[in-house]
């Protein structure tokens, strides 16, 4: 199944999520928007790392936070919880 969402983060930037999912898990996630991420290549780590993640806001936020921490990624304009929410909105 496919879904997408556009999520404006309060006092932050815009998150666009394009999702392919099945059996309660992410198959493919594409994240775009006018945010900043350092280093920039981390977006790929994030998208790759989300594959197979269960579709619950908690699991998503946890997975995103651990990828960010493990790779010393700096996010500007959104946090793990915002992205998790945006992904859940794409599932609805």
């Amino acid at each position: 199944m496919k879904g997408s969402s556009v999520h404006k983060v309060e006092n932050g930037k815009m998150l666009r999520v394009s999702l392919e999912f099945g059996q309660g898990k992410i198959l493919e996630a594409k994240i775009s928007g006018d945010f900043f991420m350092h280093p920039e290549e981390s977006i790929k780590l994030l998208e790759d790392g989300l594959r197979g993640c269960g579709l619950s806001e908690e699991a998503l936020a946890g997975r995103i936070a651990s990828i960010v921490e493990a790779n010393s990624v700096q996010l500007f304009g959104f946090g793990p919880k915002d992205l998790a929410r945006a992904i859940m909105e794409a599932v609805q």
Partner: protein
Amino acid sequence: MTEFRLLLTGEDSGARNMAVDEAIMREFRPGDKPTVRLYGWRPPAVTIGYFQAMGEEVNLEACSRFGVDVVRRITGGGAVFHDAELTYSFVCGEESGLVPKNILRSYSVICNSIVSGLRHLGIEAGFKPLNDVVANGKKISGNAQTRRDRVLLQHGTVLIRVDVEKMFSLLKVPDEKLLGKMIEDAKQRVTSVEEQVGREIYFEEVSQAIQQGFSENFRAELVKGGLSFGERALAEKIEKERFGSDGWTYLR
């Protein structure tokens, strides 16, 4: 007094402009002087942030129709229509100590050059985190930064004149029915040097003011220079391979 190199490269295409900024950053060696580059765009161009989805943000048909270039930046941030604008880029080594290691604070420090510069035009402006300079509550400058191998590149816009309707015709609007309202909203949120000074004003005058801004902010003397052979060669390579390629432009 610290010396910075000043590059006045004039007007160029979007791909060329972005390639030159990247080449300066990648050719930077420890101990090199920081560079302040001021430039313009011809033809007008839309640049989008590294993380933006081209299909979602840009009306490619309208850009083609108006002869507006479309380029994906290496920096994050949003979609920008570059026309009557002065753009700056600032490149320095992290080890210079000129700019805080903390990214948010570094935006503030560098943007303060724009704030100082605008003050020379009689405009009271201020930095608004993460990456804006606002004058009388309206955005007059947007900025984007990247760091690679301990070298920092920040580039940003100083809007000289803005045509909000034209801007919206080139960018994708989520709901055409809301276009009128979005244009009105944008006119409330965005301003230009011309609107703030209330008279006709052109690139050269803004350039002089921004040069003073950088000089004052960093207590540096800006010395006019040119691109090195290496920078020139790398810029050409980058322009062709990256910014001229569909694979990069339509990356996401």
